């Protein structure tokens, strides 16, 4: 009987422990995240993954032999839209060279359905599109690059050996030139 009671208490502790844990995690996440999450849930199923910086981070540090071209853009940023076709072109042309383009959209939540999705569809964009939605910009901008003030367009090119950040607009030629430093 004593044994039974003991194990019952033990099991209960385990159960409580299991239930407690995710709750603790929930408490750790900031109100912003909860807010952003609630918002994304109401905006019925945006087609692209929505990340905060921690969610995006794995895409910035892949170590699989590929060269990644990460372009930070938004549909409201005109110079971004001018250079977007160059990134698309590179993504298609350099696939065999182990190059992958990832387009990180900084569109605001209100624009995901109304502007971002239609734009990507209309232009037939083939590169991977993800959304970065993290209001704590002063925390994550310097983590992407210490010299970045936060203006877009901006681009990060990296592979396992080399990493460069460009707070600038690109022409197709300039982009190719930079990329060649990584793949040759």
């Amino acid at each position: 009987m004593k044994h039974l009671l003991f194990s019952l208490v033990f099991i209960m502790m385990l159960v409580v422990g299991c239930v407690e844990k995710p709750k603790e995690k929930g408490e750790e996440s900031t109100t912003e995240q909860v807010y952003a999450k609630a918002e994304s849930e109401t905006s019925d199923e945006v087609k692209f993954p929505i990340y905060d910086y921690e969610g995006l981070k794995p895409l910035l540090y892949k170590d699989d032999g590929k060269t990644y071209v990460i372009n930070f853009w938004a549909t409201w940023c005109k110079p971004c839209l001018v250079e977007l076709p160059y990134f698309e072109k590179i993504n298609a042309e350099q696939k065999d060279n182990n190059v992958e383009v990832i387009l990180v959209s900084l569109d605001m939540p209100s624009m995901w359905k109304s502007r971002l999705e239609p734009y990507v569809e209309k232009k037939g964009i083939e590169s991977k599109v993800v959304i970065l939605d993290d209001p704590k910009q002063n925390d994550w901008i310097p983590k992407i690059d210490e010299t970045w003030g936060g203006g877009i367009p901006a681009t990060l090119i990296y592979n396992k050996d080399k990493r460069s950040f460009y707070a600038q607009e690109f022409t197709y030629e300039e982009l190719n030139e930079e990329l060649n430093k990584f793949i040759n």
Partner: protein
Amino acid sequence: MKLFKILGLVALILTLGAFSAKFTSVDEGYAIGDVATDFSLKNVDGAMVSLSDYNDAKGFLVIFTCNTCPYSVAYEDRINALDAKYKQQGVPVIAINPNNPVKKPGDSFAKMKVRATEKGFTFPYVLDEGQEIYPQYGATRTPHVFLLEKTSKGNVVRYIGAIDDNYQSASQVEEKYVENAVDAMLAGKEIKVTTTRAIGCGIKA
């Protein structure tokens, strides 16, 4: 003991000196502690505006902003609020549109007038004609704030960066960078956070 303190201070000054030199050379704009240039730029009301016009000012909130950038638009009400709060304390807002209207027709002088009226701007909204002032400041995006303090050697840069830490919603803001900086400056205290980053629209020259 005293010697240690002095040595520490010397080390600190050297480090700060090295840093400011580094940032100046990298960004080709102002670092904290630099003296900012004055300007004479045309306001939406037709008058020319210079920092030297403000005899009684203790400082300035020079904000590079524009009509067309969604981030600038998201902050318009907050910029009005900053002007309302700090003009009477001697730190008025002066908003400068750094974009070249030829490349960004939405940021033309005529459109600036319209926007200023629509939003009831209480501060000067001037055009950086020829795009000569913003590179000297080192503004790279809109909105981009430079807090200046008027001193005997000129208008010294005290803070560079974002208005606060949440563009999406004023009610979600946890840190009011600019307000904290102005309050500290006016109280003669050290400004804790002197530079911040934020996403914004690259300036189109």
